[in-house]
């Protein structure tokens, strides 16, 4: 919401400086977003008179002028068609910067004739769009004076951000009221602001035929006509005010409605009576009805929307935008002024549906003052008569505005109780009164809410009003009560798991990334497809929710590779979004070089599925998963290399992770080169340990040293190593404490189709050392178990 300092002072009697006013605005909740004085960039432009004008000797379209800008005649070359002797205009001295293009004026020769400055157009000074000629000023403009000061544009423009609850401050008067309440002056009576004695505008003759057939969407509709008006450009003071806040003047009738909207927060609409037929009715739109709005676009309205229509057409998308057909033009002589109250929710729905925003909608959907219809119409009628002439009719009324008196019970002690600020009761009452509330004191105060404060409906709102005007600076700093002793731990088991996993993965050399929760649908499809597609994505690339964290990491790996990264180790902790809910997941991706080319190790090596498995196991261990009990299950997800991937689980129904090489087809789709090792850990599937006991069991190291025995087995080449290892481990659960595969060999001495696996078995004696017979018995059971489980035979 923009306004100028002088505009504010039309409503606010104040001696406060600009800085004081700005500080006051922000202090009472109207945050100042900017202050700009348009005169600042015009300080070097003066009022000048053209003394003589003669054709340029070298150019048909140029003239050579002599100009007096207060310091005697200067020669100036000018291309404006309206430049002529006697004209008063705006002159830029050498050294001045032209606002519109940033050009610094200097003495220059134009086609061989010296020019000492420039006569300016409104567009060059950014005061309007007119560039057909130079500015022409009235005969009484003082030559040599600063133009901006004379033109009254030496007037700071203040831009405040009005929160959606404060419709009353969507007009300058409401802002003035808040400032007055905050002690920055007094609010002038409305009649004084408009320089009239009374709001009782002279009226004769019957009002127009109007009706509301939609009392929900348009509960009240007031109208009157003014006959015999002359429409044309509005008065310069009104144009200047509108321009100053970035509004384009259109015609007197339209400018009046705009001016009142910005001045009083009261949107109005004016119809050209000549273009109406029959009564003007607020009603629900009929299916398929169309209206060409004043922005030039045609909208199809539907029966949920309120419109204003006559017998043959829709003329207004109620409360949002008027129609082109009945808009006022230079030929308008009779005008109908509409001052209506539209239901805020209905306006919001219609605006959202039509995707149509307007200054009127912004105000109506926040709820304009239902008690200001008569005064609004009176001011509008007054201005039309004053600026365009004409005779006003009586007011026609349809429906009633929702002006039920609202009273809020308020305990003044709540200011201390809720805001922590002690404000004296008399001061509280004074603040509320200045804001327009009525105050009836007692044990519990009864606060009458002014009709323009739709946002107030409870005690907390009154506390805010009092404290806001008293000043939030008075809110003290009150320590929260602290529980005795050292602060208790607050992290949940899941939060601890997350933190440990994250830091373990970083400690292993992986870089944590945070990638979008969104994916392009085609990418999501590579990872099983998304269960959640946005209705209104910001772009097609961010349209579906990720079913896997791998896609985001893969895209990140690609970006890094494109930037020249040779080795990418990334991980992310975040959620996957599935139909059944959101799942906390950790994912990792290893791409490029595992080890670079090096003098000690030779050629570079890439990552493989075992690297992914190692990282997955380490992260699961950090997360507290019982890694000793994990089994490797075959892969199921199509985005993995079918022969080089697997799942880690405590059983087929308790899968904790998947790992492996990315399917080469998927990698190719994602434009990734070389083998890419990935893993996803399903952190929410990891069983949570019971509440931990701090004390550990007693330390009982074995009394005797363990012994090791080696076995080499021949097995079928497709035997999973884990099957052999598990069988051997299970051969004697007491004595065997560890089994390790130390060699895996095919070739000379190993029959075709078989493989040799050599194991070291660790045997832990109990109270007494093993005898040879005992060792032989254990060996026999190892060989038997291996034979039984996987058909292994001891290699000769």
């Amino acid at each position, binding site marked *: 919401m923009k306004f100028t300092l002088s505009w504010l002072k039309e409503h606010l009697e104040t001696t406060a400086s600009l800085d004081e006013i700005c500080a006051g605005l922000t*202090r*009472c909740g109207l945050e100042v977003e900017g202050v700009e004085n348009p005169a600042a960039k015009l300080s070097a432009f003066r009022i000048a008179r053209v003394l003589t004008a003669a054709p340029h000797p070298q150019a048909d379209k140029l003239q050579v002028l002599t100009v007096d800008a207060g310091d005697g005649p200067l020669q100036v070359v000018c291309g404006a068609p309206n430049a002529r002797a006697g004209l008063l205009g705006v002159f830029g001295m050498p050294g001045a910067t032209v606002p519109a293009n940033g050009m610094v004026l200097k003495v220059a020769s134009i086609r061989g004739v010296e020019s000492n400055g420039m006569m300016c157009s409104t567009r060059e000074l950014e005061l309007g769009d007119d560039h057909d000629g130079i500015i022409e000023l009235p005969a009484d403009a003082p030559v040599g004076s600063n133009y901006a000061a004379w033109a009254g544009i030496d007037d700071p423009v203040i831009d405040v951000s009005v929160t*959606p*609850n*404060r419709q009353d401050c969507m007009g300058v008067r409401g802002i003035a009221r808040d400032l007055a309440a905050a002690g920055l002056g007094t609010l002038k009576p409305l009649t004084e602001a408009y320089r009239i004695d009374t709001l009782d505008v002279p009226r004769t003759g019957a009002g127009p035929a109007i009706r509301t057939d939609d009392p929900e969407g348009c509960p009240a509709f007031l109208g009157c006509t003014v006959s015999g008006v002359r429409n044309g450009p509005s008065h310069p003071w009104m144009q200047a005010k509108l321009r100053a806040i970035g509004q384009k003047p259109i015609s007197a009738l339209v400018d009046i409605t705009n001016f009142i909207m910005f001045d009083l927060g009261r949107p109005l609409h004016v119809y050209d009576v000549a273009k109406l037929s029959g009564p003007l009715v607020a009603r629900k739109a009929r299916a398929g009805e169309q209206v060409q709005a004043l922005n030039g676009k045609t909208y199809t309205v539907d029966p949920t929307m309120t419109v204003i229509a006559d017998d043959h057409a829709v003329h207004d998308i109620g409360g949002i935008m008027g129609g082109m057909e009945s808009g006022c033009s230079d030929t308008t002589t009779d005008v109908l002024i509409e001052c209506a109250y539209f239901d805020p*929710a*209905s306006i*919001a*729905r219609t605006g959202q549906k039509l995707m149509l925003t307007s200054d009127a909608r912004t105000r109506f*959907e*926040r709820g304009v003052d239902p008690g200001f219809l008569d005064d609004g119409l009176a001011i509008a009628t007054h201005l039309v008569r004053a600026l365009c002439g004409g005779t006003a009719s009586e007011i026609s009324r349809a429906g009633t505005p929702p002006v039920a008196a609202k009273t809020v019970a308020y305990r003044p002690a709540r200011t201390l*109780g*809720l*805001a*922590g600020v002690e404000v004296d009761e008399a001061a509280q009452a004074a603040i509320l009164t200045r804001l327009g509330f009525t105050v009836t004191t007692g044990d519990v105060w009864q606060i009458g809410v002014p009709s323009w404060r739709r946002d107030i409906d*409870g005690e907390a*709102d009154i*506390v*805010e009003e009092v*404290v*806001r005007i008293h000043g939030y600076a008075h*809110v003290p*700093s*009150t*320590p929260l009560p602290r529980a005795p002793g050292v*602060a*208790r*731990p*607050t992290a*949940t088991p899941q*939060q601890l798991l997350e933190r440990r996993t994250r*830091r373990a*993965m*970083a400690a*292993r050399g992986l*870089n*944590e*990334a*945070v*990638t979008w*929760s969104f994916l392009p649908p085609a990418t999501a499809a590579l990872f099983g497809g998304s269960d959640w597609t*946005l*209705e*209104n*994505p*910001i772009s097609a690339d*961010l349209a579906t929710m990720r079913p896997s964290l791998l896609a985001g*990491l893969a895209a*990140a790996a690609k*970006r*890094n590779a494109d930037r020249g*990264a040779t*080795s*990418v*180790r*990334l991980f992310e*902790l975040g959620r996957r979004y599935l139909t059944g*809910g959101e799942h906390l997941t950790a994912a990792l991706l290893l791409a490029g070089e595992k080890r670079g080319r090096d*003098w*000690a190790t030779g050629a570079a090596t890439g990552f493989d599925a075992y690297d992914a498995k190692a990282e997955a196991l380490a992260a699961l261990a950090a997360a507290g998963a019982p890694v000793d009990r994990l089994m490797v299950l075959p892969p199921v997800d199509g985005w993995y290399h079918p022969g080089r991937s697997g799942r880690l689980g405590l059983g087929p129904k308790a899968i904790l992770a998947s790992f492996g090489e990315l399917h080469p087809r998927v990698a190719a789709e994602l434009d990734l080169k070389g083998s890419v090792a990935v893993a996803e850990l399903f952190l929410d599937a990891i069983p949570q340990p019971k509440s931990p006991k701090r004390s550990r069991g007693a330390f009982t190291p074995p009394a005797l040293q363990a012994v090791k025995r080696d076995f080499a087995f021949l097995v079928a080449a497709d035997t999973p190593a884990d099957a052999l290892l598990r069988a051997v481990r299970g051969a004697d659960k007491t004595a065997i404490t560890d089994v390790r595969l130390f060699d895996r060999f095919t070739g000379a001495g190993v029959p075709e189709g078989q493989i040799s696996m050599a194991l070291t078995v660790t045997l832990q004696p109990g109270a007494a050392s093993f005898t040879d017979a005992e060792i032989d018995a254990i060996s026999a059971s190892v060989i038997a178990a291996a034979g039984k489980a996987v058909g292994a035979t001891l290699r000769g």
Partner: protein
Amino acid sequence: MTDTLQADLLSAIDAATSLDALEAVRVGALGKSGSVTALLKTLGGMSPDERQVQGPLLNGLREAVTAALAARKAVLETAALDAKLANEKLDMTLPVADAPRGSIHPISQVMDELAEIFADLGFAVAGGPEIEDDWHNFTALNIPPEHPARAMHDTFYFPDQAGSEKRMLLRTHTSPVQIRTMMTQEPPIRIIAPGRVYRSDSDATHTPMFHQVEGLVIDRDITMGHLRWTLETMVKAFFEVDDVTLQFRPSFFPFTEPSVEIDVGCSWSGGTLSIGGSESWLEILGGGMVHPRVIANCGLDPEVWQGFAFGVGIDRLAMLKYGMNDLRAFFDADLRWLNHYGFRALDVPTLSGGVGA
């Protein structure tokens, strides 16, 4: 005679330049038919008196030779090892393999820092779904369907689901966690709720996904004064400065009343921001007293329970503390950026070790 022999042997020992030569001397002296062995054998044929004299002499001879042999052997072994090691010399300037250096993302680090600070103030960490329904995200927070504030939020919606009254959306703030907490937990409540939030907005300072932390305190006598203290305490601890001034400005959030926007005092020198003082103001937080209707919506009696809530952007806090200037880079996973702005795995924020790294 023994004197001469001893002198000869000791000189032969000294003259031995290799372990082999030394062994030859040893065998020649102390071996089965060595010169010293031969002399020792003569002791058996001596008279007791003669033996009384010769015994100590010969034993002395043997001990002197043995000791000289051992000493010489040690010298020769040392020399041999030195010679061997001299041949084993490697170029110690050769580079060794680099271990990959991992990193923690600044968002995670800042979340951990906040969790640590607020744990000391008695706040637990709460969470909730990112795919929310419009009741939790809006209605329960006193934002009815047509409220302009809904439009303000630039919400991402999911298509209507058949048979469901609820409109699903991506939460636009972490405030739904307030609702979920108040509906499942008996007051008094002190929580923070960090997490991802979404708005359909994208430019240099806005990304469609970002991170917020919500704070909520519900008790019997909580006022805006507690809100000021809590945030002052948090800002002091987080930015590790003592001189912190907060400026409270009236504002509007449908779910708080009174509502406040909070600026932190700061200064700019040479284009660098420092938190502290009151030279300039930086808007960082929004909050207020939880609206009585919100409390009632959660099934609590607003005449009994009251409190404050606040929200702050985590990414923004990270930027202010650690100096990043482009929000979009947070989500780009550029390894160069992660290495530059990331944290080491063991930089765990603690109260004793500090909450900054």
